[in-house]
């Protein structure tokens, strides 16, 4: 009597799992390559509006982001619920935009500066006043290419 006796003789042999690590590695590399780590921690809530005529933002290295929205729940006690502007990792005001844009420009190649885009990530509940102020400031700074960040939505005329 051997200890390891076959219980069912002539059954289907077990599938070899030797190639499992390879498959997993393949998946792993795929996710490692496609993953984009969040660059900033959001301090404002941005629930983007929907639009149909969206275009993909190309050349992400040339995009600088401006977030506008009400502070997140954890910060609402300290900062209230009025919409605020977030640049990089901190709350900012419209007057900080100049410094921000210049810093963004200096981080890029001089030749690429005309192709730089500013992406406005604005919460849909925000009133246009603050957005208009930001836009006017961007005009003054000659950062004219902007992108209103939106999600892809359904056509309202088709409803």
């Amino acid at each position, binding site marked *: 009597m051997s200890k390891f006796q076959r219980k069912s003789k002539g059954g289907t042999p077990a599938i070899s799992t030797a190639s499992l690590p390879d498959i997993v590695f393949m998946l792993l590399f795929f996710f490692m390559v496609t993953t984009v780590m969040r660059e900033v921690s959001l301090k404002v809530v941005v629930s983007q509006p929907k639009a149909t005529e969206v275009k993909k933002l190309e050349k992400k290295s040339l995009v600088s982001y401006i977030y506008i929205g009400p502070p997140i729940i954890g910060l609402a006690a300290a900062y209230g619920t009025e919409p605020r502007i977030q640049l990089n990792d901190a709350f900012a005001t419209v007057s900080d935009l100049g410094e921000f844009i210049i810093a963004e420009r200096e981080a890029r190649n001089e030749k690429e500066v005309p192709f730089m885009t500013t992406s406005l990530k604005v919460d849909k509940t925000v009133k246009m006043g603050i957005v208009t102020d930001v836009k006017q400031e961007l005009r003054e700074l000659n950062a004219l290419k902007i992108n209103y960040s*939106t999600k892809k939505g359904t056509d309202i005329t088709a409803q």
Partner: protein
Amino acid sequence: MARKKRGLEEINAGSMADIAFLLLIFFLVTTTMDVDSGLLRKLPPPLDPEAPKPPPIKERNVFAVLVNRNDQLLVEGEIGNLKTLRAKAIEFVTNPYNKANLSAKKPAQDIELIGMYEVSKGVVSLQNDRGTSYDMYIMVQNELVAAYREVRDDLSMQTFGKKYGTLNKAQAKAVRQAIPMMISEAEPRNISS
């Protein structure tokens, strides 16, 4: 002698899959697949206070869209509706029956790949209040951009037999020349004080 023969023992690679799984799950959780997309627009350059005033645009060539702080639309002096805005904008830009109250056309000019074409003089003017919600603003912008896209699609279907989005660079440029996207945003001010 006997010791030497044995050499190094092979490391058990059985747990490799587990380690890889761990990493895989980490990346699966942290990954965000969202591609950034949105409405691309260009702001007008800053106003030069010394520059001479541009000649006024004729009333018929302006398609005025006003949005007040209650997110209500005023299109060409009438209370408007988001659902009809696109159709109205398309009618204004193309002016198929050459109506006197819609946009006039420039004398026909020769555009490469398209031929003689009467470019519209129409300008869509969008003005919003400081109290307008961003959601409404984006919806109006979207409708206006969609109107121009549809007009361009029409022209490119007629001349090239395919939609504007699928044209090659030279063709797209020709269509852009024939139908320039003229959406102007007026200097902000409070409409409903």
